[in-house]
């Protein structure tokens, strides 16, 4: 056992979110470990498929629901494709939690705006449930989520739950051309919808995650709405291997994304060299 050896987890449930996105419900094989496994929303873990390798995803479930660990992933590389062949009851490896987390303490007592695009909803979902489980400690909450097409929307049933919740304004959009006949939600790219919803920026924290193009066009919108750069927070997706600051792969300038991130404020991101 050394620091790179993963712990064994078992797949308890598999949810096919979209044709190329899947959510796994994982449980440590050692029930003792399951009880004392603590993590904060925003931290990531290294998921191993033995014989294929490891891949890096945030833990998509909230720390307030410790019975399971969930992770959602898109079929992209070698390990994720191997994960599509796993079924319920199979064994995987998990190493973590690593990295820093969303600043939930400073967010308390403020309004919170969640903006996500496509699979980017996974890293934001853990903080959404975390906030909703401590609902009274926050002012009003807005969730703006967009995907390319209706079929690409992730956590469909949870989106419905959030819509029914009082005190939570949920706006779901699809890119133009992605809507179906009976689609009742918004149609438009996420930045335009954020402009349309125009959440109040006073005393508000915005958490944003999605494809780089969406982030690039949403930051100026938030600036126009009056959000300060420290209050706009994102989680960065960089190539990682060890996840604990040794293998020298995930650096942006002097910062290791796996140790000083993956959660950064927009202000911190602007000081970093533009190499991510």
């Amino acid at each position: 056992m050394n620091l790179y050896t993963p712990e064994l987890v078992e797949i308890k449930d598999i949810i096919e979110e979209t044709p190329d996105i899947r959510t796994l419900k994982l449980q440590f094989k050692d029930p003792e470990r399951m009880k004392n496994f603590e993590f904060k929303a925003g931290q990531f873990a290294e998921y191993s498929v033995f014989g294929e390798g490891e891949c890096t995803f945030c833990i998509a479930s909230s720390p307030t629901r410790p019975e399971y660990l969930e992770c959602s992933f898109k079929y992209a590389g070698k390990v994720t494709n191997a994960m599509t062949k796993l079924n319920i009851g199979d064994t995987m490896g998990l190493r973590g939690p690593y990295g820093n987390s969303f600043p939930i303490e400073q967010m308390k007592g403020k309004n919170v705006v969640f903006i996500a695009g496509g699979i980017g909803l996974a890293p934001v979902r853990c903080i959404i449930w975390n906030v909703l489980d401590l609902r009274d400690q926050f002012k009003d909450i807005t969730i703006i989520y967009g995907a390319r097409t209706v079929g690409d929307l992730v956590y469909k049933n949870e989106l419905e739950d959030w819509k029914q919740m009082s005190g939570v304004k949920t706006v779901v959009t699809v890119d133009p051309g992605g809507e179906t006949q009976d689609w009742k939600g918004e149609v438009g790219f996420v930045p335009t919808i954020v402009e349309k919803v125009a959440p109040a920026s006073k005393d508000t924290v915005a958490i944003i995650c999605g494809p780089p193009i969406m982030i690039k066009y949403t930051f100026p919108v938030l600036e126009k709405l009056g959000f300060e750069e420290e209050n706009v927070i994102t989680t960065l997706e960089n190539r990682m291997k060890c996840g604990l600051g040794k293998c020298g792969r995930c650096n942006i300038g002097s910062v290791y994304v796996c140790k000083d991130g993956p959660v950064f404020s927009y202000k911190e991101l602007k000081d970093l060299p533009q190499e991510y």
Partner: protein
Amino acid sequence: MEELIISTENFKKIVKELQEKEFRVIGIPEGENKYQEITVEKELSLNSEAAPAGSSFKEYFFPKSEPIFFYKQNNGSVDLFDPIEDKKGIVVIGAKPCDASAMPIISKVFNWDYKDDLFNKRYDSSLIIGMSCHYKDDYCFCVSTKGSPENTKGSDVFLTTLENNYFKVATITPKGEAFVKEYGKHFEKDEKKHNPVERKEAIPEHFNYEKVKTWLDNNFENKFWDTAGEMCLGCAQCAFVCPTCHCFDLVDEQCGSCEGRRAKNWDACQFSLFTKHASGHNPRDNQEKRYRQRISHKFKYYMDKFDDILCTGCGRCARGCPVSLDILQVVEEINAFAEKS
């Protein structure tokens, strides 16, 4: 502690005793230019005039490929097995200051926050006997990276060359003292007052690392980078022979259909796929950006994070480079820019 000296012959006796006590003795044998395990037929030679070896001895602490665990599938579940630990302690004899001083530098990254026990198991139980250096060529610049030909950093025992191949013994760390005490019978007092062998030529100061760092602090977008690494072909020879480069890759390898291992291998930021995402996006998509990363990591990022230069000025990467891309000349150019501004 009274001045102690030792002759090369006595050192060979120590080597035999060490090997009997299950130590792996690493050194540069007669007529060769590579650190390797000293055996009966490969006699140890302590020649301080020799050029730095082709590659450093980091591979004995941070191997080019080492197993992390072995796995075996059995009907749905997986069993993990630990690799066999190499119980033998490592003793490096005759390490040049530019190689020995690299060990504490990389020990910092392997020991901040999480402890890399694969590295520590070898490094903590090891002993490094450094030796003063009398070599100089156009690629040596240890003096500019907080080092010098008599730098004792990283050595437990340090030998200074005296005439008719005697060595003055200086113990640097408690481990060194324990070693000299344990093998005391091979050391003698310096009655005949051998005088030390002088260096023929001092190594000049090529650049000031503080100025280089300040230039690197705010010149990330400088167009100097478009041509500095232009000729680099993206092989990893410079990183793999370098005593301070420590980046690695974790990769799974199958052996048969249901068994295999996960290995920790050497990797390098010069490779094109080092930072490539599964989505295809690559933050460093050309060789110029990768070469900027190499220089910045050595002369800025590592100082920001660990307050150490990730380079000991041994010049190996420049000597071996297939396209003679000389790190010293690149850093000297940066130093010139820094002095101008």
